[in-house]
């Protein structure tokens, strides 16, 4: 106190010369520092944006073709001798007969019309391999959906094999020596013929979004993984949200402050930093070994991810509960609200936007996790769309991992396309979280 008053008197005896050179130099230095600091910040932002743009650009560039698939138009004669006559047979008999028919023969017949000079079994087989193995199912479904096709000749679009698809997309270098590439000269010449005939087209491929996994890239889809992720996250939400919320409410509002609750609190914070694969080991030990739950099932995956998200939910919930002003609690208490009424009528509703934001962010993290799920066997090749939380399933990140691991060139773009789907869901979830935060933000 005395010191400061002395300085004040010393200073006030000589008025500060704001125009002196020393002063000007000081101001100049201050401005310069400010400029450097700002450009450093800007540079950091630019670098991160560049990385992000590069990453996203790469994924989109690779992945865009993943949503498209090459098909070939063939004039298929729906031969009544082969398929049976729907006007004579009963509906069941017809279905039975169609199911038993080898559709390859229809394709073979139409190919023979296009390439009359291809002879010999090897060449015929190679010719048929231009078309995807999925074309058979495609034809069968078409006939069953519309039996009146039988007896007619129709132009139908059938998927090509993934190799042909890759040639069309320019991913196979056809200038290489024939021995070094998968697609041989003969096949390329047939493809040329088809192209000249305007029979080859590259279109949006909805099966990628609606189908399950497959060994054939042109037939593989992400819907199975999307459903698997949805079922898994549902289990995660249903367990992690209430448990996390009640744990947070208890710790924040009711728990006595002592050594024991301190230890719990520290450990919850530690759990949030535990590598996710450790939770997978825990899930393996507890849910599979001890409790004997089904392998590869969303119920186990969901519970494992719930362990992973619980700390996030608890920490976010506690933070937003603590942010509810004490004056609101006092007001309710002063009116005679019981501790539980204070919590349920006032604290939780006011903290809910924050709790939900935290939960969604936790869910988004769970959606992106693959490591813990590998530990509990959600890494299997599963073609069927899971119908319940007990069915074997896979999830989006694991599907990406599986495809990235596949040898076929065509899976590269499927991998990127699946990443785009995953990113879409992640961005959507974070968008919802931001929207919730802004919509319900409380001003005190």
């Amino acid at each position, binding site marked *: 106190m005395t010191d400061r008053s002395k300085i004040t008197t010393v200073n006030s005896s000589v008025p500060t010369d704001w125009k002196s050179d020393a002063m000007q130099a000081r101001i100049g230095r201050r401005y310069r520092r400010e400029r450097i600091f700002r450009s450093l910040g800007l540079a950091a932002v630019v670098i991160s944006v560049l990385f992000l743009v590069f990453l996203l650009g790469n994924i989109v560039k690779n992945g865009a073709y993943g949503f498209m698939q090459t098909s070939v138009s063939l004039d298929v004669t729906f031969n009544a001798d082969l398929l049976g006559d729907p006007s004579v047979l009963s509906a069941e008999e017809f279905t039975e007969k169609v199911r038993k028919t080898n559709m390859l023969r229809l394709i073979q017949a139409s190919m023979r019309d296009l390439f009359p000079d291809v002879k010999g079994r090897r060449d015929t087989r190679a010719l048929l391999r231009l078309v995807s193995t999925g074309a058979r199912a495609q034809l069968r479904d078409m006939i069953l959906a519309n039996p009146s096709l039988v007896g007619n000749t129709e132009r139908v679009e059938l998927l090509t094999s993934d190799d042909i698809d890759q040639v069309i997309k320019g991913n196979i270098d056809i200038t290489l020596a024939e021995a070094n590439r998968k697609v041989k000269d003969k096949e390329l010449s047939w493809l040329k013929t088809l192209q000249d005939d305007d029979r080859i087209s590259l279109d949006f491929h909805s099966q990628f979004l609606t189908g399950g996994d497959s060994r054939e890239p042109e037939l593989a889809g992400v819907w199975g993984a999307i459903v698997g992720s949805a079922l898994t996250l549902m289990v995660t939400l249903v367990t992690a949200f209430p448990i996390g919320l009640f744990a947070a409410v208890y710790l924040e509002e009711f728990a006595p402050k002592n050594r024991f609750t301190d230890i719990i609190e520290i450990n919850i914070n530690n759990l949030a930093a535990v590598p996710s694969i450790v939770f997978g080991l825990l899930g393996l030990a507890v849910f599979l070994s001890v409790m004997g739950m089904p392998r590869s099932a969303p119920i186990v995956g969901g519970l494992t991810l719930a362990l992973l998200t619980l700390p996030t939910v608890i920490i976010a919930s506690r933070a937003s509960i603590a942010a509810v002003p004490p004056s609101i609690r*006092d007001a309710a208490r002063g009116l005679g609200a019981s501790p539980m009424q204070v919590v349920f009528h006032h604290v939780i509703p006011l903290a809910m936007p924050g709790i939900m934001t935290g939960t969604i962010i936790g869910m988004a993290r769970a959606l992106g996790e693959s490591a813990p799920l590998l530990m509990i066997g959600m890494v299997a090749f599963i073609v069927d769309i899971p119908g319940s939380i007990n069915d074997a399933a896979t999830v989006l990140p694991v599907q990406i991992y599986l495809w990235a691991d596949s040898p076929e060139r065509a899976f590269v773009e499927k991998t990127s396309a699946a990443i785009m789907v995953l990113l879409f869901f992640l961005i959507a979830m974070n968008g919802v979280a931001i929207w919730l935060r802004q919509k319900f933000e409380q001003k005190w």
Partner: protein
Amino acid sequence: MINTPTETNLDTVQASPKMAARGVNVYYGDNHAIKDIDLNLYADEVTSLIGPSGCGKSTFLRCLNRMNDTIPICRVSGQILLEDDDIYTSGIDVVQLRARVGMVFQKPNPFPKSIYDNIAYGPRIHGLAAHRTDLDEIVTTSLEKAGLWQEVKDRLDTSGTALSGGQQQRLCIARAIAVNPEVILMDEPCSALDPIATAKIESLIDELSGRYAIIIVTHSMQQAARISRKTAFFHLGEMVEYGDTTEIFTSPKEDRTRDYITGRIG
């Protein structure tokens, strides 16, 4: 025991006190915040608690409806009687106690809900209204008693936090009245308000004083003089002097009281 000696010269004979403190001590950990306080608080009159900052006025006030319970380090000894029951015995229902002894806080703290729901909350949790019409009635009369009805009757569904500070404080008073308390505790209810809003609250307290026992903490001696019949002067956790407001301000018996009133301690 009914009348303390200083009250014998009152023209009205007092009934038994509505609330009474008997040898009350409050500790925050090792901090002895309230020292051996004996005080009678009567229905139908306003009692002011005055004293320098930190002397324990709020602490004492919060003992009267056990709002101190939520502070873990706070310990209360002695007796506080509401009519004839000690509110610190274990059998007492704190929820019911706080419905009988309402509280208005220093900073207006309406719930971030509609004006209607702010008032209706207390009656709802205590089951005071059987029907919606009863509830409407309670809301209307509470707002009328708090002098807020004319200002808000057309916008009962707007948020209570959207009102001005003075309106918010009257809303809080209306909210306290709505559960039909017997005692209302007010901790510096006007400290965040401008003189006009303060005047409104003061006249409101004046009007309410016939129906409820009102105990108000204030730093404004003019306010204490204007609105209260009785005044208690606190200093360093002790109650130095208690008596008729006019006597406290014109002829205090204790030196410390005189020093405080004339601005020498504070």
